[in-house]
């Protein structure tokens, strides 16, 4: 953190595509940034401690919206089709997108292709559906290696794909964000949307992991 911060495009304003500078955050965001940078600079707040706390709460922003989107796509062929055709509209229909000026594209995993999302330039991230980006997503190594050696990155997350599965990397921009639609795991036949949503992890929706089958075949109550 300190005095440098990736811009997450997470501000409440309309993007102005005609300007080439970085879009200005809201007044509230600027006030938070001012305090944060001053307190860190003066050694009054330890940046590592702060990051640990933020990590604890990052999934509490727009909590679990993405998981609900995925679960719905798993249970409704109609919604799945709508999601893959125009994710911005489909997700808005669930009431999850409150913002303008950015579009969401959903990319579906299959046996043939596994999708992985990165923002090589900065840290664009669909936080309305995924919450705050994790620290590693914003890190320089992930941003470069996701493109240069995606399989090695996946392996570090414990994700080992079949040799026949192609890895497709999607580079986010300020205007277009990506959400991975993971494959529905085996053993979840007859599960409700709510039960399925509990299986869907943030990392699976970034594409660094797959959604694992439930540990038992019992339907969870």
């Amino acid at each position: 953190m300190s005095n440098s911060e990736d811009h997450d495009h997470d501000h409440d304003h309309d993007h102005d595509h005609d300007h080439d500078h970085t879009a200005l955050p809201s007044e509230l965001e600027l006030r938070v940034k001012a305090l944060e940078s001053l307190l860190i600079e003066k050694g009054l707040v330890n940046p590592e401690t702060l990051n640990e706390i933020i990590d604890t709460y990052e999934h509490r922003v727009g909590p679990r919206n993405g998981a609900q989107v995925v679960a719905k796509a798993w249970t409704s062929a109609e919604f799945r089709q709508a999601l893959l055709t125009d994710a911005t509209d489909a997700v808005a229909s669930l009431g999850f997108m409150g913002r303008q000026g950015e579009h969401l594209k959903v990319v579906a995993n299959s046996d043939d292709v596994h999708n992985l999302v990165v923002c090589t330039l900065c840290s664009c991230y669909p936080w309305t559906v995924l919450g705050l980006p994790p620290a590693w997503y914003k890190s320089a190594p992930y941003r470069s290696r996701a493109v240069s050696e995606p399989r090695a990155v996946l392996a570090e997350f414990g994700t080992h794909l079949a040799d026949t599965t192609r890895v497709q990397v999607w580079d986010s921009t300020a205007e277009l964000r990506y959400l991975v639609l993971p494959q529905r795991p085996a053993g979840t036949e007859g599960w409700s949307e709510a039960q399925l949503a509990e299986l869907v992890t943030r990392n699976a929706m970034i594409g660094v992991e797959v959604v694992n089958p439930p540990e038992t075949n019992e339907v969870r109550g």
Partner: protein
Amino acid sequence: MTNFLYQPKDANGPVFKAPWEATAFSLVIALHKSGTFTWLEWANYLTVKIESAQAQGDADIGDTYYEHWLSALEAIAQEKKLTDVSELVQRIEQWRSAYLNTPHGQAVELNASV
């Protein structure tokens, strides 16, 4: 951790509308952890801001909660001499300028403001 009366939350804890809210929240936790103030002290600052907003007609507590949280944080930071108004104002303008001077796609850094 102390539960605050009006704080937006669900069964699993606090929820946030936007990342800056979570950052403001985390800053207070960090300052409390390092012993800068007690929860009771913090609760008093927060209550003052919330009550004064209510007195001025702030109807939707849930929607504006973290605006009050941020105002209380600025107030307690000044009271504890962690910073002062002119420093805060100057730093806000530096960030604004840094954003305006940073080409899209590059990390925004404070020294870009000059």
